[in-house]
């Protein structure tokens, strides 16, 4: 029975629980509670709510919390006298390097994320060891000293650029520098920043300012060259061009990327004879390929005369050309990314070199020439642009998918009896679920599925489902995340990704919804799984 005084005491009830009322009010509420059953029930409910909130578990600090805090703080302090906004990133890099926590890397944008873990490891060692020394060196520098160091470094850069890269850098088209330099510069900056942090604040700063006041060409050269000035202050490790190249070579071997560095041969018959031992420019590669084809033409003529099989030459030559950017060691990284993309699409043999930037190795070139049938796949006599290549790839993929679909046999009853039988009949290729997380609540509450291929998306998803553990590491270069959400249901439901499989050129994500016996609703179930990355189209299927 609601009455006036009850309304007045509503706030008081809550305060009564906390014993935060004056004596008078307390007595008044106590007296009212004697009479009013509803208010007693209300008080009970409030108490229970208060206890439920109080009972929320306490969590330990996530691993690496203090390290990241330290780095963040250092960052914040530097920002107070640094105009450049990018310092947070090297600090995060450093946090990543110092703790080895994958999560740190996820905060980079995609390109950085891809490159960071690869390039960092050997810098990381010096990083950890000299972090304090580097910081001290940094703190000891006055703005004027930094400016002076910057000037010297830039001057040194310019001198080294023209010395080490004359004849190569000159070929570069200045107008294209911004565009094609994008990734290259990114890499250079990344290298420099991460290494610079190990002791070279001056180098880091120097580069940032240089961006603003140098002519475009100079800027690009400096950008390309910066890795050689990493780790500036005396006593700190420095990477020379050679060391860097050795390192990048090792990296590219690890990544399965090869550069066009043919070995000079004394045999004058060898079309590669006299080719310099460095990545080739497009022109140089064209010249080499002209020699290769002419030699093959000669050998074909001999073969025809001897009634032997010949090697067709049609159309292949342009594909084998060195890329315009093949002359830069850092392009390995770009090539790595490009090649990864193509591996993901599963179409290494389709033409359309992304941006025509790929280099091919001598071995690849020879292999191409020798496998004559592969020439059939090259459609035309020129290089394809990235867009054309993509269109071709897409068309090919679609054709494959259609063919696979068309080839699916009608199911026999016996095939459907076992899972294996089904898989065999349908041509299903399972993609193992690498890690997964799920819960009966915390999902979006509307039925839906998603496939996430970027760290940012995953971070967002992780936040939305409100999981308390630290964001798990997902290597989006080779993995992706699939998620399924169930509709909000008043009875208890559980949702589970049963399997992920490639089938007929598509990825099928099979999920199951089951009631939970004795469980309490409402539930908003979800399930998130990590699987190997793939660019195939996907669909969701509910299974019993």
């Amino acid at each position, binding site marked *: 029975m609601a009455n006036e005084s009850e309304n007045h005491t509503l706030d008081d009830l*809550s305060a009564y629980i906390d014993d935060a009322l004056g004596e008078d009010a307390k007595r008044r509420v106590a007296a009212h509670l004697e009479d009013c059953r509803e208010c007693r029930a209300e*008080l009970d409910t409030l108490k229970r709510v208060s206890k439920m909130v109080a009972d929320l578990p306490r969590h330990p600090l996530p691993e690496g919390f203090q390290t990241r805090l330290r780095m963040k703080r250092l960052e914040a302090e530097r920002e107070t006298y640094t105009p450049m906004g990018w310092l947070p990133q090297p600090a995060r890099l450093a946090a990543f390097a110092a703790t080895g926590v994958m999560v740190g890397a996820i905060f980079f944008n995609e390109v950085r994320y891809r490159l960071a873990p690869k390039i960092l490891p050997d810098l990381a060692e010096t990083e950890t060891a000299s972090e304090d020394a580097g910081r001290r060196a940094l703190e000891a520098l006055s703005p004027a000293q930094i400016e002076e160091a910057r000037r010297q470094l830039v001057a040194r850069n310019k001198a080294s650029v023209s010395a080490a890269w004359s004849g190569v850098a000159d070929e570069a088209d200045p107008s294209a520098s911004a565009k094609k330099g994008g990734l290259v510069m990114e890499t250079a900056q990344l290298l420099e920043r991460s290494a610079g942090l190990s002791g070279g604040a001056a180098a880091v700063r120097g580069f940032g300012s240089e961006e603003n006041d140098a002519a475009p060409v100079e800027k690009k050269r400096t950008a390309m060259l910066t890795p050689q000035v990493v780790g500036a202050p005396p006593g700190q490790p420095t990477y020379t061009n050679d060391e860097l190249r050795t390192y990048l070579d090792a990296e590219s071997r690890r990544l399965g990327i090869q550069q066009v560095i043919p070995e000079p041969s004394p045999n004058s018959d060898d079309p590669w004879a006299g080719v310099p031992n460095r990545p080739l420019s497009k022109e140089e590669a064209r010249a080499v390929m002209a020699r290769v084809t002419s030699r093959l033409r000669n050998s074909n003529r001999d073969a025809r005369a001897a009634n032997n099989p010949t090697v067709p030459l049609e159309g292949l030559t342009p594909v084998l050309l060195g890329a315009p950017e093949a002359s830069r060691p850092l392009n390995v990284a770009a090539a790595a990314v490009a090649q990864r993309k193509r591996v993901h699409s599963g179409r290494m043999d389709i033409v359309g070199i992304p941006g025509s930037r790929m280099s091919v190795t001598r071995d690849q070139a020879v292999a191409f020439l020798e496998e004559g049938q592969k020439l059939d796949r090259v459609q035309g006599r020129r290089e394809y642009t990235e867009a054309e290549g993509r269109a071709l790839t897409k068309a090919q993929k679609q054709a494959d998918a259609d063919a696979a679909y068309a080839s699916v046999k009608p199911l026999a009853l016996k095939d459907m009896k076992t899972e294996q039988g089904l898989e065999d009949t349908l041509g299903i290729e399972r993609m193992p679920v690498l890690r997964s997380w799920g819960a009966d609540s915390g999902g979006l509450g509307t039925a839906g599925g*998603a496939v996430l291929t970027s760290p940012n998306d995953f971070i967002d998803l992780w936040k939305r489902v409100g999981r308390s553990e630290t964001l798990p590491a997902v290597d989006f270069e080779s993995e992706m995340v699939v998620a399924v959400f169930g509709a909000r249901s008043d009875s208890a439901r559980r949702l589970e990704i049963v399997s992920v499989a490639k089938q007929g050129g598509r990825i099928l994500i099979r999920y199951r919804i089951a009631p939970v016996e004795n469980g309490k609703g409402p539930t908003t179930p979800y399930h998130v799984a990590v699987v190997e990355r793939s660019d195939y189209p996907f669909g969701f299927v509910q299974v019993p």
Partner: protein
Amino acid sequence: MGADAKEQKDEGTPRPEPVSQPPSEAEFLERNSRLVYNLALRLVGNAVDAEDLAQDALIRALKALPNFRGDSAQTTWVYRITVNTWKNRVRSEKRRSFWKTLPLHGLFGGGEDGEEKNTEGSLPADEPALDAGLETEEVAREVQSALQTLDEENRAVVVLRDIEGLSYQDIGEALSLPEGTVKSKLSRARNALALKLKRYAQNEDG
């Protein structure tokens, strides 16, 4: 009745810090990091943002530490910084959405809405019953998501009171609110939570 309610809360009440001299940074972090992180966790509702917020708040606190005069208990002071950092952040935060879900039905014929009814009855449940641990975890999740629906000041009030055990006066100080407002906000927040958590909070037979 009022007496045993009071008893419940006593263990959470913060101890006043000695005023003599500010603690070293290491001591300060040692003492407050976990506290701040857990407060942040309850305020923002997820571990990723909580770490970020906790670190920002701790950095701000460390910066201000030399000027900390001990007018109030250090804990209250740290709470205030955390809550303020959080409020600033909420103000400037734009909700961004990077990804979207696709409907489950359609492409391949399967669909939750369409098939759920058919399958419900015939399916065996895979687990006989939820054990107590799971139940607690589930309740915790429900409570956290109910907290998330409160507006920021109400959320802060209820977290500071029921989790951190601050007095009304300390809460007022931490949030720059008069005590009377703390009282009414707390009442409103608890009632809102009671509604959200009806099935847990109400008496079994009531």
